[in-house]
């Protein structure tokens, strides 16, 4: 069964450093998403991406964040200058159609020191 994959599974970085989180969505899916989950809190929407552009973003997704689909398979989330409060699990999700279920990857646990 096809699945969303994410790398790395864990990332530790120093405050102020740039990080890139990578995702490979399910191959025939067209809509891509990033969510985050701070420890003990609910899953929160960050950004949606379709047709090589951002379709929607939350107030969390400020100028420090950017997304890119550099080739036909990868979808990346870049945090330019990490802050302590960026420590969280980051989940990528994809779907074939916005009416359908979003399938989630296993997540990247980001720890900012």
């Amino acid at each position, binding site marked *: 069964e096809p699945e*969303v994959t*994410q790398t790395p599974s864990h990332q530790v970085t120093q405050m102020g450093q740039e990080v890139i989180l990578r995702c490979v969505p399910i191959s025939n899916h067209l*809509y891509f*998403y990033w*969510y985050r989950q701070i420890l003990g*809190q*609910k*899953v*929160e*929407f960050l950004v*949606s991406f379709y047709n090589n552009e951002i*379709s*929607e973003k*939350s107030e969390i997704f400020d100028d420090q964040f950017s997304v890119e689909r550099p080739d036909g398979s990868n979808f990346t989330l870049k945090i330019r200058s990490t802050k302590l409060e960026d420590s969280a*699990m980051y*989940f990528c*999700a994809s779907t074939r159609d*916005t*009416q*359908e*279920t*979003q*399938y*989630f*990857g*296993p*997540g990247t*646990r980001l720890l900012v020191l």
Partner: protein
Amino acid sequence: EDQVTQSPEALRLQEGESSSLNCSYTVSGLRGLFWYRQDPGKGPEFLFTLYSAGEEKEKERLKATLTKKESFLHITAPKPEDSATYLCAVLENRDDKIIFGKGTRLHILP
């Protein structure tokens, strides 16, 4: 104000003791309601999608139902391996983002 509220926050059951988890939602127009299972340190794993009031879906010991204001996830004769956090999420008509509830932590005792 939360648009998706799940109750209870946590539930402990004996193996075989059936129960229901609740998800109430307040959105302007529901496009879909989703149930996911999340194990510690893992991503949400899809269980069900419900689109309209009166719809029901079943999978093994789980059954999800939907009304105009809430959804229930019924678990029948649960086993310890059903222990997880169960997440409810909604998709509104106006955008593509899923709004999650805080989840119900379910613990099944052997």
